[in-house]
């Protein structure tokens, strides 16, 4: 039985929900993937969407992400300071955001809607106020937005 557990574990379960990828947490702002101009949602040539976010004490940057429904979505997050958490209520999106590492989560939203996105790993005194929102909108409305609109959501 032990052998079966180990074998199936290695074959099917032994992988992080995220890739293991390192980055320099103190130089995020200078250049590269997580420079400010790259944050938010980007549409890929294959039709999928990539959302790049920075989790920092005590906010997500940007603090709201718009993503198209019924589309493969890839979240890529990192932290310049402490450990944070990334969780979308009601979905299987859940990962830690560790400084020095890039967390990656793949998902797909079936229908338009709003998801709250609280930091769920203790990151200091402001932790309980650190949350953001992911707004899923209909796929056909999405490409019409400008890049500025994609990194911010309408106030609600």
């Amino acid at each position, binding site marked *: 039985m032990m052998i079966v557990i180990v074998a199936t574990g290695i074959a099917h379960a032994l992988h992080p929900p*995220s890739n293991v990828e390192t980055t320099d947490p103190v130089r995020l702002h200078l250049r590269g993937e997580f420079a400010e101009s790259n944050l938010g949602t980007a549409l890929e040539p294959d039709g999928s969407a990539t959302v790049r976010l920075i989790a920092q004490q005590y906010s997500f940057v940007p603090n709201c992400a718009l993503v198209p429904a019924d589309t493969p979505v890839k979240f890529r997050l990192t932290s310049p*300071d402490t*450990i944070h958490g990334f969780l979308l209520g009601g979905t299987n999106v859940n990962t830690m*955001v560790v*400084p*020095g590492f890039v967390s990656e989560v793949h998902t797909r939203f079936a229908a338009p809607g709003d998801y709250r996105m609280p930091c769920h*790993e203790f990151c*200091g*005194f402001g932790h309980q106020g650190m949350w953001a929102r992911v707004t899923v909108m209909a796929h056909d409305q999405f490409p019409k937005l400008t890049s500025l609109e994609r990194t911010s959501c309408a106030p609600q």
Partner: protein
Amino acid sequence: VHRSDRLALSHLWVAFGFFVPAVVLGAWQMLMRSPLPAPLDDPDAYYASVTLHGTVMAYVVTTFFAMGFGYAVAATSLGRPVRGLIAAWIGFAICLIGTLMAAAAVLSGRASVLYTFYPPLLASRWYYVGFFLLVGGSMIWVVLMIVNMMSWKNENPGQSVPLAMFAVTATALLWAWSASGVLLELVGIIFPAAFGATTQIDAGLARTLFSVTLHGIVYFWLMPAYIAFYTLVPQAAGGRLYSDTIGRLTFIMFLVVSVPVGMHHLLVDP
């Protein structure tokens, strides 16, 4: 045997002496995060309270209880006073001093990092040193459990060690392994940063080391209960354990499984 009683009871008194206020803190935290009114509504005190509650429940209560339980089992199951009484009291003192240091640091509001430390967050060095003394001091107990079992074996050749003592020694070894992760994290990563020798913390490496402790420690908490179920409960029920050999195998398996078990925290997290 009387002096062993005092040793064991002192450990249990400390365990429950910290347990009671930690329960109160837990209830207060619940009120703080609920719509109900909480006395002393101070958000900064909340994380200090969570840290103290976690440190006490995860380490202080469990370590002192397991140590006291171990000494009691050594004295009763082997039917003789605990060997190394002076060393045991020294270990008790080191653990208690460490606990008080850590508790004072948390109560002063300078160590609100929760009991898993969350590096690269940093707390007062007194918290980490106190924590190190508590966990490090318990290694004296680990050595004493092994010494007590081995000396009994040498003096009673051909007889098998009573199951309770066998299981307590397995617990001690399990704890030595589990604690090695957090001790290495403290010495290798946290102390240099807390004392100002380094300015950056490798959060990934710190988590990797802590993962060794992270899950094994849960088994350490449970072991006294399992030992009671395998040895005290059958006796109290007026029977005996169905199979002594399977009982021993259980505790060996526990020890083996505890070695890699923390790894899944690294698989689920980046």
